[in-house]
Structure formats: structure tokens, C-alpha cells
């Protein structure tokens, strides 16, 4: 079998045109991996600078009223995913900046895609794009024409006559293709790691995710290599195999992902932004308004606090009731947000679940989704950012309201100013990506689908080898 692998490699390298294509592809892959990593490093630096500037502004405000600081607010800047240099996933479509403010939950703004013109609707050529689209195409051309050439030249028949097993022949072709694919994968990973190391970002490399990335793509490339080998053996000629495989490639990379996305959107539509915000606004109007002293909910809470402290008027309170009213408003708004955003997320989850069904029939989709999950650039990580930013907002505004209420001022005291040390003691926003096993658990169906594809195709490959041996397939 080893001999067949070496023979196949030697054939490719001896053919000048194929060797040129392979070298050009390898250089392109390395260039893309280097460029994607370089631009990720730039984004990483810009993110750090923006976050540092925001923190400097926050700490530089000086003595201020806590509620004034709640409106001054903060910004949560979305960092790129842990392996965004290898797979940028959905990042271009996501807003990168989220306003953190009292009373309101914002929408992340400044998505790259919204500012890059018409061409932003096309995918970006990152390392994952090459591994999911270009490398399979290369394997299809080499594989479909390789085994066919053996058959057309009579070398296949000769090999079998000389006592080589059919299984060994097909496995040899499979291994030759797979190893070529793995070569491209390793070139990408090593280039990416090298550029990161040169930019002092190597210590931040998440090795678990890197290993998972290599693992997922190794399995995917094995599926593609096995599929190509199976099609080459089972079809009558190299031309038929090429036609079938190219049709499957077009369907798997360009048509099916879009069709399943569109079907998921049609079956589980999301509300328009206006409708979603109008729903939240209407629900909030039914609750307390912290800025309105005549509000019925605020009035009820005021009575409770007065009873608690055993006094008649807010002036007699040793605390500032306004801060309590603000927190009352916040807590109600948080419940409304949780309810509405929860519904929205469940709907998105149903859409993604529908997409997972598409992954069952399309290994390209499985690999794409698994790759995004491992790289930390999928919906799960987007939602994790939103949840953590919202938790940060609640923590920040809660702490400010607490200072407003219990920091030493009395009700109606608008001149009160908390110290800069207090503001500096509040931690800045820091995003922690979900754990790898959570990301993979979320993509369990894709993981199973890809494994089933591999098992099924390997079984078909063995069967084809056996039939070839017994002369039931043409050679």
C-alpha cells in the first residue's frame, strides 16, 4: 500500500503541470494563512487600543454622580475569536461595539460587512475557505483523474494480476489524497502559528482548539479523499467520476448551504428589529420608570423602603432612594430583556438546528460549522459575547445604583459625587470564550454526521476494493 502511495505522489510530481498546480496551491494556501493571521493580529491590536482608550475615559472622568456615570456608560468591544486567524466564521456580519448604559440594552454596531460595499456579500478567503472549498476541488481533480489514468493505462489491471489486493489499491489512492490534504492543512496551521509567534501572540494560542481544528479538518479531508476514491472506483470512467464529483462539490459548497439557510429563515422567521424593539418598549412601559417620581411602582417601593427604615418621608431616609428607584427600573427591564431576547435566541437555535439537518446530508456544511465552532467564530460565541456584555452591564449599572443609593448621599442630592477610586475599582469588560467542549457539544450533530460520512465512505471503499479484487468492477 505504501508503494502505491509513493507511486501516486511520484506521478503527480513528475507531471509538470500537476506539480505546478500543487506548488501554486501550496503557496496560495501559505499566503492566505499568513495574510489572515496578519490581519487578525492587526485587529487584535486595534481591539486592545480601543478597550484601553475606553477604560482611560472611564477612569478619567473624575468625581461624578453615579447615575451620570451610568449614562456616560462604557463600550464592550468584541474581540476576534480564539482561532479567527484560521476561520473567520460569521465575524464580518457581527457588530463589533456594544454600548453599555443604564436603562437600555443596545445592539452591537459597526459590522465590517456593512461598511465594505457590495463585495461584502461574498465569502472571505481565509484558511478555512481554502480547506473547505479549494483543497477538496484539488483532491477531486487529482483523485478522479488519477485512478482513471491507472485504469485507462492498464496499470490497475496489471497491479491486480501481479497479486496486489484491490483493497490495497483503493486504500493507497485514498491515503495518497488524504496525505496531500493533510500536507495543506499542516502548511496552514504552521504558517498561522509562525506569524502569531512573530507577532508575540503565540502565548495566546489555544492549543486545545488548535488540535480540535486539525482533528476536524483531518476527518473532513478523509471524507473528501474517501469520497473521491469511491467515486473513481465505482464510476465507469474518470470523466464520469469528475462530472459527478464536481456536481457534488458545487452542490455542497455553493447551493445546499444557501438553500438550507434560506429554508431555515423561511420556516422560523425572526421578527424585524423594529417589531422586536417595539415589543420590548411596550412591555417596559407596563413597569417602573426610575426617572419618574410619580410612577406607581416607584411609589409602592418608596412606601416599602420608608416602612423598612421606620420613617415618614424620603428626606428622613439615611440613604438615597433615587438609586433604589433606578435599580427597580433596571431589574424590571432586565426581566423584559431576558424574556424577549430568550424568545429570539430560541428561534435562532431552531434555525441553527434546521441547518444541522442540512449538515447530515452535506459534509461541507458539517465541516464548516464545526470549524467555526472550534475557531470561536460561530453563533454560540456571538451569543456568549452578548450574554457576557449584558451581565457586565447589569453588574456595572447595579454597582452604580448601589453607590447612588448607599454611597453616602441622601434622596434628591444631585450634587453627590462618587470618588474616582470607586469608579476605578469597577472591573472593565472582559470576554471569555466558551469552553471548547461546550462549543463541540453544541455541534454534536455535525460531529456525528461527519463521523458517519467517514464510516460510510470507508465501508464503500472497502467494498469497492473487494469487488475490484473479485473482478466485479471494471479495471
Amino acid at each position, binding site marked *: 500500500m505504501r508503494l502505491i502511495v509513493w507511486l501516486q505522489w511520484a506521478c503527480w510530481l513528475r507531471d509538470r503541470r500537476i506539480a505546478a498546480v500543487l506548488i501554486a496551491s501550496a503557496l496560495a494556501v501559505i499566503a492566505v494563512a499568513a*495574510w489572515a493571521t496578519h*490581519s487578525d493580529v*492587526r*485587529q487584535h491590536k486595534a*481591539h486592545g487600543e*480601543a478597550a484601553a482608550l*475606553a477604560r482611560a*475615559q472611564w477612569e478619567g472622568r473624575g468625581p461624578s454622580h453615579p447615575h451620570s456615570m451610568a449614562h*456616560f456608560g462604557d*463600550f464592550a468591544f468584541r474581540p476576534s475569536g480564539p482561532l479567527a486567524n484560521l476561520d473567520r466564521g*460569521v465575524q464580518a*456580519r457581527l457588530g*463589533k*461595539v456594544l454600548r453599555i448604559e443604564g436603562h437600555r440594552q443596545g*445592539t452591537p*454596531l*459597526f459590522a*465590517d*460587512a*456593512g*461598511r*465594505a*460595499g*457590495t*463585495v*461584502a*456579500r*461574498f*465569502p*472571505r*478567503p481565509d484558511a478555512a*475557505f481554502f480547506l473547505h472549498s479549494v483543497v477538496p*476541488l484539488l483532491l477531486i*481533480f487529482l483523485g478522479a483523474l488519477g485512478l482513471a489514468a491507472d485504469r485507462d493505462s492498464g496499470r490497475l489491471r496489471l497491479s491486480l494480476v501481479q497479486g496486489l489486493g484491490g483493497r490495497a489499491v483503493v486504500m493507497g489512492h485514498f491515503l495518497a489524497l488524504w496525505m496531500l490534504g493533510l500536507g495543506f492543512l499542516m502548511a496552514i496551521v504552521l504558517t498561522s502559528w509562525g506569524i502569531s509567534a512573530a507577532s508575540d501572540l503565540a502565548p495566546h494560542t489555544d492549543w486545545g482548539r488548535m488540535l480540535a481544528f486539525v482533528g476536524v479538518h483531518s476527518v473532513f479531508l478523509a471524507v473528501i479523499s474517501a469520497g473521491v476514491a469511491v467515486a473513481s472506483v465505482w464510476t465507469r470512467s474518470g*470523466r464520469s467520476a*469528475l*462530472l459527478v464529483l464536481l456536481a457534488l462539490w458545487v452542490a455542497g459548497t*455553493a*447551493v445546499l448551504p*444557501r*438553500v438550507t*439557510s*434560506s429554508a*431555515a*429563515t*423561511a420556516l422560523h*422567521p*425572526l421578527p*424585524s*428589529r*423594529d*417589531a422586536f424593539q417595539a415589543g420590548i418598549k411596550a412591555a417596559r412601559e407596563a413597569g417602573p420608570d426610575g426617572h419618574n417620581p*410619580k410612577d*406607581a411602582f416607584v411609589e409602592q417601593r418608596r412606601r416599602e423602603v420608608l416602612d423598612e427604615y421606620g420613617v415618614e418621608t424620603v428626606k428622613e431616609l439615611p440613604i438615597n432612594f433615587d438609586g433604589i428607584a433606578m435599580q427597580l427600573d433596571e431589574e424590571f427591564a432586565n426581566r423584559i430583556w431576558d424574556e424577549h431576547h430568550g424568545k*429570539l435566541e430560541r428561534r*435562532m437555535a431552531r*434555525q*441553527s438546528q434546521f*441547518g444541522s439537518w442540512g449538515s447530515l446530508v452535506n459534509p461541507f456544511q458539517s465541516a464548516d460549522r464545526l470549524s467555526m465552532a472550534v475557531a470561536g467564530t460561530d453563533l454560540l460565541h*456571538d451569543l456568549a459575547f452578548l450574554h457576557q456584555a449584558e451581565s457586565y452591564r447589569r453588574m456595572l449599572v447595579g454597582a452604580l445604583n448601589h453607590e447612588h443609593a448607599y454611597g453616602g448621599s441622601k434622596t434628591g442630592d444631585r450634587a453627590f459625587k462618587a470618588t474616582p477610586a470607586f469608579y476605578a475599582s469597577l472591573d472593565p469588560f472582559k470576554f471569555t470564550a466558551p469552553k471548547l467542549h461546550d462549543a463541540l457539544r453544541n455541534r454534536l450533530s455535525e460531529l456525528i454526521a461527519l463521523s458517519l460520512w467517514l464510516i460510510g465512505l470507508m465501508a464503500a471503499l472497502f467494498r469497492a476494493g473487494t469487488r475490484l479484487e473479485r473482478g466485479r468492477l471494471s479495471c
Partner: protein
Amino acid sequence: MLRMLPLAAQFELRSIVRDRVGTAALLAFLSIGTIALFLGERHVEGWRQAVRNAGEAQQESIDEARSYLASGQGPADRPWVDLAQPRWQDHYAGTRIHREPGPLAGIAAGSVDSAPVAFRVNSRADPSAGGGYRIENPELAMGSVDLTFVLSILSPLLIGVLGVGIGGREREERIDRLIVVQSGDLKGWLMARLVVVTAIAAIGNAVLCAAAGWLGDAGAAETLTLVAVGVGYAALWGGLLAAISASARSVRAEALGYGAVWLALCIVVPTVAAEVSLARVQSDFGVAETLDARALNYEAYEMAIDDVTTQLYARYPELAELPAAKEAALAPGPRRTATGAILVAAMAERVGARQEESRTAQRFAERAAWASPAVALTVASERLAGVGPEAAAAFQAHSMAAVEARVGWILRSVWRMEPLGPTDFEALIERTPAPFRWDPGVGGSPARAMLLWFVVPWALAVRGFHRSERRMVRSAPAARPVHRDG
């Protein structure tokens, strides 16, 4: 060639019927196109619904304000609301600029469009802070089926499936000489076959485009323009196939050549263009609109009043003639309004800078259109549909102008120092800007690029066929003289 067209049409139609791959490809193309039309219609309906909701919200706000004006009192739980003041009339007018969907909006439903479809105009509104009207699942938004995708990516594939082999097969199987003997014109026959295949794909495109126009209730001019774009696009890909077919020695070479061209023009060049364009904005975290703008907001309220009024009267000179300007010192209310106006002016500058950024990105897309007809078609479709970055930027500019006009109205009302009444409120509503309508058209670079992509490949094909025929004639063995004995 013309005389061979009927025969070539018969031949190709029979081939499609007999060849299961061709039939399946044609049916799949039309089916996906139909799905795209259906999804486009859903998109437009969602858009219309969002506009209707915005209209209802506006009416609710106006009715509420009218009831306060009629009773002479504001809301019971907010006694500070006084509709005699411009800021509260501004708040309750609730006026929105609607962005009406164009009749062909559905054809580019998958485009990136970051503007809302209804923008609430008031003195604090920021046109760039809302995001698009859709809440999207980003994993699904990365790829969706719309007519632009069907035309730009799938129709060239259809032409490939139906037409690859024309020319290459004749040379590979050596029947080119037979054709010369039988018809005397190999070039004419092959060109006629290619024209027929192109026409089949063009008819497919035309049917889908006409259906899109009919479903969207588009006018004849818009529908015809879209049909012309669809037909022209098929024609240019027919030309590319013909250019490759003219020189291909075998079916395999022709298939590989056409596949490589499709891959380069529909996948590689657009993705490289996307990379270049996205890399330009990737490191931009909107610091100008967030951190810088916030710092400016807080600094503005600490500015000396003379600095505020100097800037204000330079921008709105008519205010200097109104009663408030004659006062010894500006009251806190007008001062707040003046500072707000200065901040809106700064916001207009930021929106202007983003508009320029958007124009730069679009100019790059137009340049990319010269390198890829798929990009040219996408730009043309978005311009016809009124969806996408250009239309979004135009709506934001329109919205910003409305905000500035509203701020001007508030300033003039405050500076007159007279309480406002119901008539002023009705006049304010009357002044609501008309719905924004995108002016569809495909002129400019995309149209010129498509024309070039049409002319050059067909010219190369004609030249290639001519040369290949001459080469074949030259290489044909000379007729041997017949020797007669006796």
C-alpha cells in the same frame, strides 16, 4: 451561421431532452430560481410590514400628542411634559422617514444592508446607530438564495453543463472534418450551437427576471432592464464558453478551461475583492462614533457660551435676528438646545465621513466589477433593487438631512421665544419628509464592465474559430492525383 441556427436549435433541444444531466441541470436551475423569487417576495413583505408598523407607531404618538394639545395638559404621570415647547413637540411628532421597498427589492434579498427601513426623526436621532431592519442569525445570513446569486453563480454553471463539449468533442472524435464536408462551415455550425445553448440559458434568466418584475409589480422599464441584465449576463458567459471552445482540443480540456474560468470569475476574484474591502475596515472599532463622540458630548456642555453661540450663528445665521439672540444671556433651555445643535453638526460630519468610506468601498466594488462579471452583475442587481450598501448609505444621508432640518426648526422655534400651539404641531407633522425611494438604474461601471465582458470573449471566439478552421484546412492531407493505367 444564421442559416444553421434552426438546425442547431433542434439538435441542442433534442440533446437536452435525451441527456438526463442537461435536463436535470435546467430543472434544478429553474427550481432554485423559483425558490429565490419566493424568498425575495418574503423579504419584501417583511420590509413592507416593518414600514407599516412604523407608520402605526407614528400615528399613535401623534394621536397622543393631539389629545394632550386638545386637553391643554400633558400626561398625568409626567407633568413636566409641555407641548408648548419645541423639544416636546419634536418628541411627540414621532415622525419617521419610511424607506419604501422598490418593486425589485427581492432580487437582492441576500445583500448586506445596514440601514433601517424606517428612521424616527428627532433632535437626538443618529442615522448610523440603528443597524439594519432585519435581525439576522449570522450563520444563516452568510449565504442565502436570492435571484442575484442564481443569476451570477448558477447561470454560468448551467451554460457550462449544457455547452461544454461543443467544439472539443468534434475535435476529439475527429468529426470536425465530417462537418466541413457535409455543411462546408464548421465555424458556423459550432457558433450556431453555442448561440443556441446561450439562448437557452438566457431564456431561463429572462423568465426568472420577468417573473421577479411581475411579482414585485415593477414597471415595464425596470422589468425590461432586469431582463436585459439577465440576458446580457448569460450572453457574456456564452461568449466565454465560445472563446474556450474555439481553442479546446478535447472535452476534458474544454471542461477544465471553463471550470477554471468559472472558479476564477465567480469565486476567486469576488472573494479576493471581499478580502481586500473587508481588510480595510477590519481594524476600525468605530472609535470616532463611540469614544470620540462621547468625549465631545461631555466637552460640549462645558464649553463657554460665547463659543457655543459663535459656532451656532455661523451655522444658522438667521437665529441671530430672532428675539433670543437679543437677550443679555441665553437661558438654560436655549443653551442646551444650542449645544445639542452643535453636537448634531458634529454627528453630521461623522455620518458624512462614513458616507465617504461607503463611497470608497463602492468604488472598489466597481473596480472589481471589471475583473469579475459576477461582481458586475451583483452591483447592477443591487442598484436595480435599491438594496445593499449604496442604497443604505443614501438612506442614511437622507435621514441625516432630515435630522438637521428638524434641529433647525427646533432652534428657530426656541429662538422666537413664543409658545407653540396645535397649529405648529400640525405644521411639524406636515413637514415630515416624503418616503425615501431609491432611483433604480444600472448605468456606470457595472454596465460598461458587462458590455466589455460580452464583446471581448465573443470577438475572441470568432477569431479562435476562424483560426482553428484555417488550421484544420491546412493540416488536411492533399488530394492525391489519380493515375490511370492504359
